[in-house]
């Protein structure tokens, strides 16, 4: 995955470049809006990480210009302005996700991975049935089965599983779950999300020898087959 970081704070940018490279991705850096625009236009990037306040060309204008040029590279907006309406403004300008500063890198990484994957799998991703190993979720009939056995879920549990499966093999953070399943953007301070996930896990994984919902320490959750990597 190729990531372009458009950020004028050199220290923050070099930290991000290093961290993304450590995670195994190609990361480039542009220090102002004009350079960023030129690189985003010319290079083949999978995700753009754009700071809102940039010299020469501000983040939102940059995104708007890219979208006008029909460049649909997914954009994650980083911003020190964490207000609700700022998020709305960012998304309206053509951004795909919004992360207020300060943030944890694990949160940013998870979001960037989801964005890039969404792009790569675009045509097929919106299939009506999600499948992971023997777990199946039918988005139309709202039926969930494992090994052919129907599992009854509450509507919210269904949406939780749907989001996890849609982003299977990827880390999904608690904040992302709160955003997509409950449509709230605040930082879940307590373990509210964990309790919901463990309830879901009890329904999905209990009685089966291969767990599918995994906790990724310090980051969030992941639905996948097998248990390589960091485990709870």
């Amino acid at each position, binding site marked *: 995955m190729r990531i372009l970081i458009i950020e004028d704070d050199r220290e923050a940018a070099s930290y991000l470049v290093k961290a993304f490279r450590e995670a195994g991705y190609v990361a480039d850096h542009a220090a102002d809006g004009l350079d960023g625009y030129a690189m985003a236009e010319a290079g083949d990037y999978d995700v753009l990480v754009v700071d809102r306040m940039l010299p020469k060309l501000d983040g939102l204008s940059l995104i708007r210009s890219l979208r006008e040029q029909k460049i649909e590279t997914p954009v994650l907006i980083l911003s020190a302005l964490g207000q*609700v*309406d700022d998020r709305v403004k960012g998304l309206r300008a053509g951004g795909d996700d919004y992360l*207020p500063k300060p943030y944890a890198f694990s949160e940013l990484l998870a979001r960037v991975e989801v964005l890039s994957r969404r792009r790569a799998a675009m045509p097929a991703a919106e299939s009506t049935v999600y499948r992971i190993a023997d777990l199946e979720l039918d988005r139309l009939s709202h039926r969930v089965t494992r090994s052919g056995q129907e599992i009854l879920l509450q509507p919210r549990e269904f949406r939780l599983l749907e989001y996890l499966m849609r982003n299977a093999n990827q880390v999904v953070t608690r904040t992302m779950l709160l955003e997509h399943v409950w*449509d709230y953007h*605040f*930082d879940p*301070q307590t373990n509210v999300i964990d*309790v*919901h996930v463990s309830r879901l896990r009890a329904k999905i994984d209990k009685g089966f020898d291969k767990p599918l919902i995994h906790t990724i320490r310090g980051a969030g959750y992941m639905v996948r087959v097998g248990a390589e990597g960091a485990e709870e």
Partner: protein
Amino acid sequence: MNALGKLVRTTAFKLSFAYLIIFTVFAFVTLGYVAWSAQKLLTDQFVSTIQAEIGGLAEQYRIGGLRRLVNSVERRSRRPGASLYLVTTSNGERIAGNVVALPPGVIDRPGQFETFYSRTEESGENDVEPSHAIVRVYLLPGGFRLMVGRDIEERKRLRDIIHRAFGYSLLFIGVLGCVGAWFIARRVLKRVEDMTETTRHIMAGDLGGRLKIAGTGDELDRLAQNLNDMLERIGELMHGMREVSDNIAHDLKTPLTRLRNKADEALRTAKSPDELKAALEATIEESDNLIRIFNALLMIARLEAGNAREGLADFDAAEAVRDVAELYEALAEEAGVALEVAVEGDLPVHGSRELLGQAMANLLDNALKYGAAPGGPAQAISVEARRRDGEVLVVVADRGPGIPEAERNRVLERFVRLETARSRPGFGLGLSLVAAVARLHGGALRLEDNRPGLRVVLALPLKA
């Protein structure tokens, strides 16, 4: 720009000048009309006098013939005054009257016209200067001609007087107008310059400075008053901002020091890489907490400054409350607490669903953390949302130890935590945020006694 140029360029001067021109034109029109009317009045008077005299004399002629007419004319001619008389033969030879010379042909034309003439005085001397007169010539039966006229030099003199009046008044208006304009402009200019001077001082940093109010209640006073009010508001905002940033700086000092000390201690005491790693992880955790504190503080500060107001919209509070209750229901169940939710349908509120959700989350967090009596079993928490008297009341009530009445206001302040809460995780910002959210919505946060327990009432104005 010299002083005169500055003066001339003022709006007051230009306005005064424009008025001057308007008044001059007006004065001329008025004077002109008066002059014309006076002339016309005089002429009319002359004409009717002449008519009457001709009528009278013609009557004399009819009664007593030429002799009687000549007698009358002679008699009248001797009267002091300005009337002119002349009786001639059909070929223009003078028989009687006080007129000696007329332009040729005048006496042959019956009717009324203006002409020059010369007259004989009592002394018999001829007038050297021919004068202007209005005359009427009348043909008497028998070919004699009667001319009666009036000297109109008088009229000319009147005209001259009026002309002179024109000149003087023009001069007078001009001088007075210019002086007035200069005076007014200088007065206004002085006040504006005073204002400019004061604003310059204020811009240079004297933020306590205010514009002078003359007390006349005119537009400049109103402007000055408005500018003063604006300065006042700016001052308040700046004061608020300074207070917030001071508070944040102060509030962050403690956790930052703790973070530093932890890192320092780890550096000094850690023996193995594992211990160092654990210390580093603890440090990261601590900085995450710091970030959380910082975010919460920033959010409260912004809500209090009213910055979030532009993002507000209409939404259903009932749904927001239900959603958050549902979010916490699993957590409550885990803790063995029953969450009793009673939400009326459709509670429209103008504000932010997101912020209300966050406030609810904070209240439920608190209720779960502190809602159990110390050492006792977990108790039910009730969540209500209903409308009452134009308000939406969102209530979160627990059956824990509650908050003593004396402390209820204090716990709304930032970083205030009760002694009983010290042992639990938290920063003391939750209720501050809820209070800020309530204020942003134009509502209020009330802490009440749930007998036993705490009953938190978030009252928001109902959207009409």
